[in-house]
Each structure stands twice: as structure tokens, then as C-alpha cells.
């Protein structure tokens, strides 16, 4: 169980090339959530899987150096507050909780959904960071025999 050492050099090289492509695909899914299947949850899961790919290939210690885990925890905790702020802005500007107050745009354009796009981005950040941090925290336990 050499978990901190990481995997072989083939896996490491393939991960180094593909992790940015996977991240870009997750961002694409988030930004087109109101036009095509996907959205905040699906794109967030893909972003979390990109980070988990690095953690599986390079080991947990390298990931701790590469990513600022404390900052990710702060982002994950504050994204729920950002969602609430957008909802309350909907009360003050639009009349009801989560009501639309932004420019609606033209149908089938990228900017065509008002506040759905920012809400999708916030949900994607929340889901991606929390899913990554859950597996990161579960990987911290040593798998030696108990007692």
C-alpha cells in the first residue's frame, strides 16, 4: 500500500496531459447548462474527478503541495453564501426569492438565461470542491490493521 508514492510514470504522464482537458470539459458543461444536458452538478463532478485523477496518480502528499487545500475549503464553504446572496438580490430587485434581475438576452445564446448561469457556476464550484474534499478527507485515514 504505497499510497503516498503514487503510480507509475506512464500514469503520471497521461494524467499530466489530460487533467487540463478534463477541467476544460467540466467548465464547458457548467457554462452550457441552460442550453444542453449537464449543468452545475454534472460539471462540478467532472471538475472534482480531474482533481481526484491527480490525487490517484501522484499521491496525496503531492496534491497537498500542488493545491491550496485550505483555500479550497474556504471557497467550498462560501459558495453556499454566494447562492444565498443571489437569492436575496432576487427579492430586492426582482420581487421574489431567486427571481431573475439580469439581462435575458436572445434565445439559444450563451447569455440567454439571466441568473441561471451564475447560479450554475456557483453550484459547480460547490459540488466540485465538496466532492473532491470528501474523497481527500477519506483518503487521509491509514489502512493499517486496527487495534
Amino acid at each position, binding site marked *: 500500500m504505497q499510497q503516498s508514492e503514487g503510480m507509475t510514470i506512464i500514469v503520471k504522464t497521461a494524467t499530466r496531459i489530460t487533467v487540463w482537458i478534463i477541467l476544460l470539459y467540466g467548465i464547458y458543461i457548467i457554462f452550457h447548462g441552460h442550453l444542453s444536458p449537464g449543468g452545475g452538478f454534472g460539471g462540478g463532478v467532472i471538475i472534482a474527478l480531474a482533481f481526484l485523477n491527480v490525487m490517484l496518480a501522484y499521491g496525496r502528499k503531492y496534491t497537498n503541495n500542488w493545491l491550496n487545500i485550505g483555500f479550497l475549503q474556504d471557497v467550498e464553504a462560501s459558495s453556499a453564501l454566494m447562492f444565498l446572496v443571489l437569492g436575496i438580490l432576487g427579492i430586492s430587485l426582482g420581487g421574489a426569492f431567486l427571481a431573475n434581475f439580469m439581462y435575458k438576452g436572445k434565445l439559444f445564446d450563451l447569455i440567454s438565461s439571466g441568473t441561471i448561469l451564475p447560479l450554475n457556476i456557483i453550484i459547480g464550484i460547490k459540488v466540485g470542491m465538496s*466532492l473532491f474534499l470528501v474523497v481527500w478527507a477519506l483518503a487521509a485515514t491509514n*489502512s493499517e490493521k*486496527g*487495534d
Partner: protein
Amino acid sequence: MLVYILCFGLFLVGIYGVIVKRDLVKIILALGIQGYAVNLMIVLFGYRNGSIYPILAKGKEPVPMVDPLPQALVLTSIVIELGTTALIVALAIKLFEKYGTFDITKIRRLSG
């Protein structure tokens, strides 16, 4: 009607795993199978024969679509299932740290 009976059969497979199996990992997988069976049944409730997915795309004529409400409900259900599965896995890891096994017949000390 047959698809609903098959969904119920899949649910029974999950119940069988939870009751009969002794490995904690297999019990967690069986709980997942139960959740998938229920989700599949809810999605099948909204199915209409000869209709398409409920997405309005550019340059397409509006035709009859399947009901999108069960799909949104199932998406929420999947998210909650993910959270509960993470909690169960964390508890199983804690049990493994304490007892060194996943066999539930050997996890029998209540204290100490």
C-alpha cells in the same frame, strides 16, 4: 407494467444484499442498488411512448416530450444519495480502523 415489475425485482436484489451479505462493502453496494432501482422507476413514470428528450434545441420543431419533472426529482435524489453514501463510507472506514475487518459478525463489541 413489466418494466415496473423489473424495477421492483432490482429493488429486491438490493434488499437481499443488505440482509444476507456480511461484508460492509457489499452492504453499501446493495444500498446503492436499492437507490438506483427507485430512481429508475421514478424516471419510467414520466416516460411517454414516441416522444423525445425535454430539451428545446435550435432549429427543431417542438414535438411531444417526456415529462421532465421526475428527472429533476431524480437528480436531487442522486445528490442526496451521494451524500448519504459518503457518510456510510466514512463510518465504515472508522469501523475498519477500530476492528481491522469489514465482517459484521466480528464487529460486536459495543464499547471499549
